[in-house]
């Protein structure tokens, strides 16, 4: 679906690099593999340990046994309710917020990115520099007045402050999409215009499909950022029934008697959506990171 005419394709680049010279051809392969394998095991072991802990019966968590015996699958359903938080609801909140952010970012960043890529107007340079400059403004500087604004609007303890801003675009994504629109041949757009399409149709019907890989990268990164975000919901959402999953996990951390097997089960489930997305769309994550350089 994405491969035709895709302007970047990791596998392709992989193939190129396979043949290409690098800084060293003398490092023994065995040594490289050894380092990489040991490193990977060390790297992945925390997650394995997490899975093992999550399956242990409570009394086994502080025993030296590595493997759960017997595996306590019940930890997973139990972890969803044991602190009194209704995680079912939290998942729903997180899903709503994440989907709204992905849709909002895609809709707005696409049209703004197109504007900056293809249209001319007085002041355009100024706004474009400003757009890039906003990349440097740290969130904390705007945090307090933005809270005051949403507070004044009565939006505290609603999902609005964590969803609506996405509909106004995000500088990195706008910039990324602009770069991609620049690579689309102008002839395609002109052909569509001759056929009577307006700008709106051109952007969403003609241009967007041509930069689908970029849109996919924006989508997965927005998904990941929103799902994992803790600070923003923490500022605006104090009502536990509107908590996100990330806030719920923080709540577990605060619980008086840590039941690590349940906490690990809950944390693992909280990670799962992003992990699944990563397994399905790894290349878009990697391309997105490569292109925007943001986490």
């Amino acid at each position: 679906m994405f491969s035709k005419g895709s302007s970047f394709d990791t596998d392709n680049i992989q193939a190129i690099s396979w043949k290409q010279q690098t800084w060293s051809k003398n490092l023994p392969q065995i040594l490289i593999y050894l380092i990489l394998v040991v490193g990977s095991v060390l790297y992945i072991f925390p997650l394995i340990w997490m899975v093992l802990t999550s399956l242990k019966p409570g009394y086994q968590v502080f025993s030296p046994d590595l493997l759960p015996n017997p595996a306590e699958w019940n930890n997973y359903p139990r972890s969803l309710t044991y602190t009194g938080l209704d995680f079912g609801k939290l998942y729903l909140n997180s899903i709503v917020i994440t989907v709204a952010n992905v849709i909002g970012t895609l809709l707005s960043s696409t049209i703004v990115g197109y504007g900056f890529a293809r249209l001319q107007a007085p002041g355009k340079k100024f706004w474009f520099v400003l757009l890039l400059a906003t990349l440097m403004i740290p969130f904390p500087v705007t945090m307090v007045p933005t809270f005051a604004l949403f507070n004044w609007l009565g939006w505290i303890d609603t999902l609005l402050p964590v969803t609506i801003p996405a509909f106004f675009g995000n500088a990195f994504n706008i910039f990324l999409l602009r770069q991609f629109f620049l690579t689309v041949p102008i002839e395609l757009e002109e052909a569509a215009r001759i056929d009577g399409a307006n700008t709106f149709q051109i952007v969403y019907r003609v241009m967007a499909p041509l930069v689908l890989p970029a849109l996919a990268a924006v989508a997965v990164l927005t998904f990941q950022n929103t799902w994992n975000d803790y600070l923003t919901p923490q500022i605006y959402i104090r009502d536990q029934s509107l908590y996100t999953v990330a806030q719920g996990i923080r709540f577990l951390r605060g619980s008086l008697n840590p039941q690590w097997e349940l906490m690990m089960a809950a944390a693992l489930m909280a990670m799962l959506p992003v992990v699944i997305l990563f397994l399905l769309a790894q290349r878009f994550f990697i391309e997105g990171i490569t292109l925007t350089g943001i986490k």
Partner: protein
Amino acid sequence: MHKPLLLGQAGGISFLKLSRFLKPGITFNTSSRPPSSLRRKESLVFYLCISPWLIGFFLFTAGPMLASFFLSFTRWDYFSPISWIGARNYERMLDDELFWTALRVTFTFAAFYVPLSQLISLGVALLLSQKIKGVSFFRGIFYLPAILSGTAYVVLWVWLFEPDRGLVNNLLSWLGIKGPRWLSDPNTALPALVIMSLWGMGSSLIIYIAGLKNIPPSLYEAAALDGANSVARFFYITIPMLTPTIFFNLVLVLIQTFQSYTTAAVATGGGPLDSTLFYLVYLYRRAFQNQEAGYASALAWILFLIILAFTLLVVRSSSAWVYYDSQRGGKDEK
């Protein structure tokens, strides 16, 4: 026309352009088309298209920034009338022990995390740029933790660092070492957070891998013909050619590090004995727990200025150590 955008470059461009913008005497330039009869209409459409961002810019960036600057000279609890107190918030910082603690903690964390994360991710990237099979598999593994960032990530590490039965101290005890009490000890809590954060350095790794792939193979071939050995090639080709990527990563990680919040907020809440009181954790406390909007705004501006100063420092210094070849400069336009 339809040429692939070089990986690692697009992201760099923004800072490249910015850095030029920030340097006096170099003007920023974009391509322009000849004027047409449709110009006025096109302008209108342009402004309509960018209006979501434009409105968002005024509502969520420019407006709040000005407001926060104004608030930094006031006392306000979000409800009572705002009272102007001049520079008292800034004076108060000089006397505020926790402010200095937060600065010290944040700088110490950055001083360890930034170089370590860059060294490790560059090292792994160099290994992964070798001619070996399974690169994407290894890359996936090293990158995976980075996408898990967030509270679940931190809670996992709190468990790993649990002093009596956590994985870290278990491993140490197999080696015959009695592990420290990590997050419960003011001396080891910050190092624990550095280790915790290093696990998620995947983004830098990916950008380095892309940067390495960008180095034209012809350079290596030519050097090999000239009889340069791999050490020479590494220091005379790889490193210089990689400096733009290093520069980009450095700026990015620095900005992110100064704004670290979740790690300390979830793992330690800033304790024990304020040994992990990240700047933003302290700022959050002032802004939303003590409802000191004025003082918090002043703190936020100081953070902004610090980040700005560091970024400018790196950007200004870049001419001395970042290598841009003319070809890259050319691609940069449009």
